[in-house]
């Protein structure tokens, strides 16, 4: 019998269950794109069929890191840039949890960039939402890894000399098996993409454009947007790596020309997740490791029986 009866609970789930009864009101600024992520995530969970107690939402630091303060589930608000290593260990310790990690563009593409590459490479079965507002919000408006070249701020007074990170291309190159971009101004598309991402068996990366009306007033509100999967203007196959790559390049460049392209850019459904790969070589137990510590009948191995002979 499982020690985790919240898992695989197949009752009907209401999106309101994800709204905390105590202090449900976020502290984000009026008009902030982060509201859009929260709304889309609450909308997606009932569709995925996950109850609050089988979801672990792991966040980093920044305005985005407050997501799990306003989303009622198991939550771990970690430190700047480190949501992914915490989240992926939880995902291998108990693969039956729905693990979602979230953070901002500084958190995920800057300080946590190395973790992003490696988590994507490992193709962990989890979803990673990056709130991309092209700015550092909580520290009051400094240039971020996704700020456009020439972006002026108090810490880059002559304008940034750096080209911005290409989030979608980076995810693809690193090995993510699902890559999408959506925008806070489009909650329905965002919800659908989140559902698809969570149902995907592997690392699903969503670059979520979240406008910052306080510190990035010059930036667009990410409208109007075009859906590259729906719009006839675009013709590419998101299961084809080369075509996906080309579409991503175009999307990344056009954002800085004022054109907002969104959609699912890449998906690789037949690739086994990290959990599956490790199970196949006997490096992740079939029953979640987390269960064993509640199993009173489990016979724990002793080093004296296992190893001493080789030292005699």
């Amino acid at each position, binding site marked *: 019998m499982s*020690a985790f009866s919240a898992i695989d609970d197949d009752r009907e789930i209401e999106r309101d269950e994800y709204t905390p009864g105590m202090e449900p009101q976020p502290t984000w600024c009026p008009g902030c794109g982060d509201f859009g992520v929260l709304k889309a995530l609450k909308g997606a969970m009932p569709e995925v069929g996950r109850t609050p107690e089988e979801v672990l939402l*792991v966040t980093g630091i920044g305005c985005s890191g407050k997501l799990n303060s306003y989303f009622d589930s198991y939550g771990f608000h*970690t430190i700047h840039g480190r949501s992914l290593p915490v989240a992926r260990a939880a995902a291998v310790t108990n693969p039956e949890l729905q693990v979602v990690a979230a953070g901002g563009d500084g958190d995920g593409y800057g300080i946590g960039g190395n973790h992003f590459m490696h988590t994507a490479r490992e193709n962990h079965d989890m979803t990673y939402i990056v709130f991309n507002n092209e700015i550092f919000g909580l520290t009051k408006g400094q240039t971020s890894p996704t700020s456009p070249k020439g972006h002026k701020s108090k810490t880059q007074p002559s304008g940034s000399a750096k080209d911005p990170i290409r989030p979608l291309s980076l995810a693809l190159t690193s090995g993510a098996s699902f890559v999408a971009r959506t925008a806070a101004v489009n909650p329905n598309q965002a919800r659908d993409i989140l559902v698809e991402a969570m149902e995907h068996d592997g690392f699903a990366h969503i670059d979520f454009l979240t406008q910052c009306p306080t510190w990035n007033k010059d930036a667009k509100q990410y409208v109007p947007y075009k859906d590259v999967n729906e719009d006839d203007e675009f013709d590419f196959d998101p299961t084809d790596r080369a075509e996906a790559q080309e579409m991503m390049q175009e999307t990344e460049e056009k954002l800085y020309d004022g054109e907002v392209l969104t959609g699912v850019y890449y998906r690789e459904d037949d690739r086994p997740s990290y959990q599956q790969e490790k199970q196949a070589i006997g490096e992740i137990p079939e029953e979640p*490791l987390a269960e064993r510590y509640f199993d009173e009948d489990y016979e724990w191995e002793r080093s004296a029986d*296992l190893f001493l002979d080789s*030292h005699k």
Partner: protein
Amino acid sequence: MTDDELIWRIAGGSGDGIASTSQNFAKALMRAGLHVFTHRHYPSRIRGGHTYVEVRASADPVKSRGDGYNFLLALGDSFARNPQEEAYYGNEEVKPLSENLDDLREGGVIIYDSGLVDPDDVPNFEERVEENDWHVYDIDLRTMAREHGREVMRNTAGVGVTAAIAGIDTSYIKDLMRDAMPEKILEPNLELLDLGAEHVREEYDADAPDIAVPEGEHEEEQVLMSGSDAISYGAIDEGCRFIAGYPMTPWTEVFTIMSQNLPQLGGISEQVEDEIAAAALAIGASHAGAKAMSGSSGGGFALMSEPLGLAEMSETPIVLVEAMRAGPSTGMPTKPEQGDLEHVLYTSQGDSHRVVLAPGTVEESYDHARKAFELAYEYQIPSILVYDQKLSGESTNVPASHFDREPNPSTGKTLTESELAEQPHTGDGKFHRFQHDVDDGVSPRSIPGQENGRYLVTGNEHNPEGHISEDPDNRVAQVDRRLEKEAAIRADLDEDSLLAPHGPEEADYGILTFGSQQGTVEEAVDRLNDQGHSVKALAVNELAPYPVEQVTEFLASVEDAMVVEMNASAQFRGLTQKELGRFGEKLHSLLKYNGNPFEPAEIVEGFETSIVEGGELPGHETKFVPAAGD
């Protein structure tokens, strides 16, 4: 200096199989009934470079490397660089012989491989041999090995020569070779072992040197083990089934042992992108319900500062290993030092609260690994095991019965779903994970996926429900609660204390040390008392929470004390003065930081010259720093 012991040094280059040959040799002597202790010296390079392993064997228990050694097998360095003497690194070809002569005792034995080493390249070799009454055996082991097997098997021929000279029964060595070697290489190796021995009997007078392997007998079954083995086995017996790491010498040993064994135990090992990730993974795994560990050496541990603080603030139990090596920065990767003590105690922002244990022996490495897990999970706090390349690289015999213990998979105050239902919750059903008023400061926890257990945990200061809070009253209550654990942990450690002074209780003088120097200090103390001095030692291997009472009692009972540690800034003495706030006028330091661990004789000399006679140390190997007051 006694010759009722054999201290055999096998020297060559990295990659020549020195380590495995010496390990088998030590095990054979252990099986023959002797107490053994190994000491390893090697460079940070893959192939070549001055490398040796000493195997000390005696009928009586041995706790340390010896003073120098009495038997050299110089095999030649098959990967030697630049053979010119004026080269920056000197003539490496001859180093297996030349570099090892200073430590060789009078009357000692030298076997060298004349196929690879030319004694004409060793300055004043003949004179030194004569002066020191060394017995020299020049044997072309290389050719012997080539003719009967492969060149790399010259180690085996050298062991055969050693056995014949020292009178060692080769049957134990042969048994070990049969266990370890595939058929194809077994036969030539067995042949070479005998050939080496025969060569000595035919060509030399076997009775010439006054060194023979002593005879001994063990009262119970022994195992040959290193500190790294023992730490790993302790972790496994505590139910640790998750490890994350990044390779770094010497931490890699524990990481390797665990990675090779966890899958067969249904456990998980993750080799990840860096040490920040490694420690963060241990936190994630522990949060999700597993008993988890990570670790590194100095530089990698520096990257763990940030997750270490998160573990303290989020009260996530984890165990970290810090395998010290000489620093700062990359320092000397393969050389032991105890210079990371302050790093381990204080790194990460804010008021640190953690458990720090420094095992002094192989047995204690096992005991402390178990204790580290027990305390981490009982008190929801990070535990750090700090040791060094000395303890990781040395193997010694330990009674097998020491490891005959029951496993303890307990995760501490982790609630079941039915227990969770009885716990306080907010109106909307959130579990109060961080309650203010709880015994020993430990608030019970739930695991994600449990019904009625959901909560938020954060590295920010937080209220009982886990939500971010900067309310002053809550802040003080939470800080006080987390710090309250330290007193409880200290009491827990005192209950079955592993701290035990060594030497006569009423001694006039004291020696304090910590961690891996324990055995060497204790051997020095025995020798000093035999020579008529009155001295006792205490190895303070529990560093946080610091055992104030025990150390105060020890220091109050002696006139003067010498603090022995392997670093240049007397970090352990500083910690002791900080914790006790007194005894500054009694605490003198004996320091060593040249990359080699203390020999017992250096501690004897330091004590006699500096403490008893008040004189100055003549050598440059160790440094004495007199007491400076509080």
